[in-house]
């Protein structure tokens, strides 16, 4: 085996052996990026929720009071709820409910509503950090 061939063979071996590891590392990096993007969306959604919904839906707000009367105190604070669905949140924001007025797409554009819904429906793993 010539020296040149040995080097090539070694290189091919290295590629063959290392490729799965590289693929795994790539997938992990992608997953990390997705997780980072999700975290960022949740954080943005939290900021928007506080700025645009917090008037009524934080502690002591009229929305919190009315939800407490309707559904019980344990389901009054939207931030603490784990049973909300994104499509339901969007429907209520655009259609209103009870004495809550509808919100238009200039006040809360669809892109912002997506982020607010992402925050309110965040997975359990994100609940410790973003509240």
């Amino acid at each position, binding site marked *: 085996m010539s020296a040149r061939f040995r080097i090539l063979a070694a290189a091919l071996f290295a590629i063959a052996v290392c490729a799965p590891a590289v693929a795994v590392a790539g997938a992990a990096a992608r997953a990390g990026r997705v997780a980072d993007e999700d975290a960022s969306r949740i954080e943005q959604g939290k900021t928007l929720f506080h700025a645009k919904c917090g*008037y*009524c839906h934080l502690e*002591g*707000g*009229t929305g919190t*009071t*009315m939800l407490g*009367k309707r559904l019980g105190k344990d389901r009054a604070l939207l931030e603490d709820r784990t049973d909300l669905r994104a499509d339901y949140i969007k429907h209520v924001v*655009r*259609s*209103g409910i*009870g*004495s809550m*007025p*509808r*919100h*238009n*797409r*200039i*006040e809360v*554009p669809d892109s912002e509503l997506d982020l607010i819904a992402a925050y309110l429906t965040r997975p359990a793993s994100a609940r410790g950090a973003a509240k």
Partner: protein
Amino acid sequence: MDLILPLGVSAKSFQQALDAFAGVVGKEWVLSTNEDRDTYLDAFAPGDASSHVASAAVGPQSVEEIQAIVRIANEHKVPLWPISRGKNLGYGGCAPRMSGTVVLDLSRMNRILDVDERFGYCVIEPGVGFFDLYNYLQANKIPLWMSVPANAWGSVAGNALERGYGYTPYGNNTNNICGMEIVLANGELIRTGTGAMANSPCWHLFKYGFGPSWDQVFVQSNYGVVTKMGMWLMPEPEATLGLSMQLPNPDDIGWAIDALRPLRLNGVLTQDPSLGNSIRVVTGQAQRTEFYQGDGAMPDDVLLALLKRYGLGWWGINLRLYGYDEINEVNARLIKEAFAKHTDREFAVSKWHKGEPLDNSGAGVPTVAPLQAVNWRGGRGGHLGFSPVLPSSSEHVLKQFHSTKKRFEEVGLDYFGSFTLSERYVTNVNLMLYDQDDPAMMTKVRALFKVLVEDAQKEGYSEYRTHISYMDEVAHTFNYNNHALLRLNETVKDALDPNGILAPGKQGIWPKALRENRA
């Protein structure tokens, strides 16, 4: 809601206008689906919300975009209904007076352009909300206080343009306007007061300029689109002193107003206190069914039991003195002496000093908590205010109070009233709380409103502000010399806005081509 075209505008011309609007602001900011139109309905409509349906909405972000939109609207004869943030709840919210009007939604124009601590003013765009300005002042540790209305969800500029009230010495918000920038109906940009000079350092210091003063002409009118507003803010005082008292009897409101009037006139009291019946407090915490499930207005015995439970009197008085401790103490003594002539009760006293948390300071801290009241009757709640202005004396106040309470009870509503005392007059806000899904109740509410307007007119009182559905009725009560003032208003309207594109019908002022629309 399905599309209702503006009166006299073809579907083709309307679409051309929308396309042209999109060319100015981008497609994203022109809303014209059925769902979009729904979002601009009056959330607290005292009846059929479909009486005031926007055809579309357009959301500019700059003065130049507004100018372009106004010019397009003229070209296509498409009317515009400017809103600041659309939270004029109880007065129509974000809905236009005339169906088919395009809402000019200024929510995106939300920049705080300047806050001048030395001279005590801010310059803001119409989309700036009370919470925005409050947060800005707090974040930047600027010792200036705002005047904030009961429901602070809305726009600072919009509230001042509708003559809204707060509770500090700067509480008459329209009085704090000093220098505005306005896009006229023809697209021309003007600045009022000394802002009309190219380089005046006094635009937001001196209200009047030279010649006619125009700021107030653009308040509660439809002559232009306000794009910037100078607004005076109150320097943070060294201290405040609060005086609270519960008055047990309905007629106590009479002597209380007589006792407070001279103190307000001579400057012992520098804020406009609001004396409200105590159901106002209860509606902020509970719903009616928790106390009473019967028909008709809540009986007196139920009401008295309820007040006892909450430790309230028939009326609640909350006064606040602002300034230096020593002066506040002297003024508090004068107020106590004036009240001691009428009651053995003593004021509860609270004090605040600079540097302490603002809770209970008497500063304007935004909240929307009073909106809770709309849930009083359950269902899809709402409220409508009837708010006449009358002289601040017991004979006027007592007569108006008893007359209004009786009218409320005739239709089965619980009386909810307050008297806000200014130097020489009181503003009597009467809130009708209802369930929009109860058609019988809503029929009674509308009848009540009409009869209250008629009753007030007989006494020579008019509302200071009203819901879009009643603007013609209230404008009609200004009947001196066969409505000469309305003719002047409409002469100005025709001169400034010959195509009638800005807010047709607002405050009962209609452009020439649409006057047959008057109710």
